[in-house]
């Protein structure tokens, strides 16, 4: 474990095998030694059976999201937790399609996935969950997840950093008095973040080596800076990333490169230091 310096964390594949391949290639290129998927392999995209083999073949450590639990256990709905009937209407169409077009071996694989991951990384206790550590379909939005609540989750679940995906919208919030601790929502790689762009998001967590970056002292230890995120990836394939149900097809155009790898950024990194590298 001590040799582990960079890991990639993503979620929300939503049957988008093209984006999955692009993200995995990008993560490897960025030096990710281990890759985690926080669940929701299925949904929305037209080819439900194409993503599971990729996850298996590329040794992606995959956990179970609400969608995977539903498909794996052949349930009647996705357990997405929507409150708007229109959301449920479109989600049900997508769910029925995915359930009907997922093979039994893949359903069984999804059914048997673990519910979360814990690991020590850069001297910190990382906890990966789908929605939140306490509920698989809890929505943790940036504007409704205050710092005191994050402190409570970290305390209750014995973690320094929690990573989740369920909402599919990326953000992170660090504790004001301990920037190495906090919560990151890694976003989703199967659909854009509803921001008018075609990018998808995932997180790269990097244990910075002080000898590589003299300007990166850790706020908590002299040997490692806090894990940080995030990266943005856009599928290289000619196929377009899937768009939200009922929405127009996403444009293929990607904005120019607009950021850089956070591993060499000074620490402690404030929230606004979430930056992106566009790989299109």
């Amino acid at each position, binding site marked *: 474990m001590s040799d582990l310096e960079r890991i990639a964390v993503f979620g929300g594949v939503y049957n988008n095998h093209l984006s999955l391949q692009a993200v995995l290639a990008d993560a490897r290129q960025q030096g990710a030694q281990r890759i985690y998927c926080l669940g929701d392999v299925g949904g929305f995209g037209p080819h439900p059976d194409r993503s599971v083999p990729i996850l298996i073949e590329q040794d992606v450590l995959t956990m179970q999201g609400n969608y995977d639990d539903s498909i794996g256990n052949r349930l009647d709905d996705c357990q997405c937790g929507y409150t708007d009937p229109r959301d449920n209407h479109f989600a049900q169409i997508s769910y029925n399609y995915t359930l009907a077009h997922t093979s039994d071996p893949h359903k069984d694989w999804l059914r048997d996935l673990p519910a979360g991951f814990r690991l020590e990384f850069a001297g910190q206790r990382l906890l990966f969950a789908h929605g939140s550590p*306490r*509920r698989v379909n809890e929505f943790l*939005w*940036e*504007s*409704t*997840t*205050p*710092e*005191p*609540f*994050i*402190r*409570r*989750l970290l*305390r*209750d679940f014995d973690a320094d950093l929690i990573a989740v995906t369920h909402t599919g919208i990326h953000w992170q919030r660090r504790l004001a008095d301990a920037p190495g601790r906090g919560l990151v929502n890694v976003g989703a790689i199967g659909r854009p973040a509803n921001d008018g762009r075609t990018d998808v998001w995932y997180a790269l967590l990097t244990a910075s080596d002080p000898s590589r970056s003299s300007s990166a002292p850790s706020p908590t230890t002299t040997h490692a800076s806090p894990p940080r995120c995030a990266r943005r990836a856009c599928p290289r394939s000619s196929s377009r990333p899937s768009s939200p149900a009922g929405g127009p097809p996403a444009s293929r155009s990607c904005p120019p490169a607009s950021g850089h790898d956070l591993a060499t950024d000074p620490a402690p990194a404030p929230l606004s230091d979430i930056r992106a590298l566009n790989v299109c």
Partner: protein
Amino acid sequence: MTRSLDLLELAARPAPGQQAPPTLPFVGLDTLWLQVTGTVCNIACTHCFITCGPKNLSHPFMELAHVRALLADARDLGVKEYYFTGGEPFLHPDIFTFIEETLAQGPLNILTNGILIDDAVAARLGALFAAGPYTLDLRVSLDGTSPKENDPIRGKGTFDKILAGGEQLLKHGINPVWTVTTVLAESGDAEGFARFKAILAERGFDRPRLKFIPPFKIGREERRGGGYGEHDLLVEGDLFEGEEHALQCGSCRMVTAKGVYPCPILIEVPAARMGDQLADALIPIKLDHPACTTCHVEGFSCRT
């Protein structure tokens, strides 16, 4: 034969009031409600379950020092979201201090009848909404799609005033949640939903947000539409697995100037008072009031 045995079993079963109520586990304080103006309101709706009105001082206004102490407690407890209600919250002279200090530490929902929201109030709310890191939601109560439907319930002339308040909010960047109590049963069906959408669209709400609330048969609503019956009590075994996550009282508490209560509905029930401090109330509760049946049966949550 089976049917006869079932009937015999039923006959032998004690009445609901003689059976133990279910106990709801407490999963942690996610939601803190503050009854900032107590039971004081500028109108007196016929369905109000806590009989609020201009002269009801049963629960007085909350003091600024009390609210600040609660916010400090809530920060330590890791509260996720806040709700202000009354009465009418915008009657409180310190309401904007409450709002600013609450929004500094978490998302806030304010339940209002909208009548006091003029251009200046809406502009100030809009500025706070735009500047803060957390969500500010306004829930505006409206009980019909015309003065003829709404005004007999909420008071003469209120339909137009409520909509005017909502329009001010929209003008300043806040799309409110229109809250409809289904006193008129058809309000909550598909046709009723479409009618609300239509009248709101006429006023510029092209993405209307609507929440429908079942009437609670206590307070003034008991006199209007009748109260609960003996059969409206929950008993052990009625709750489904994990219902503490669905029922608001599994993760919320309501604080008024008079103490802490399990939820916003039961503040006029003396037996429901849990203590003076939040710390007194972070425990499982017995669902022994008939109003609990409404939340259980309707799958209702006071959350936005």
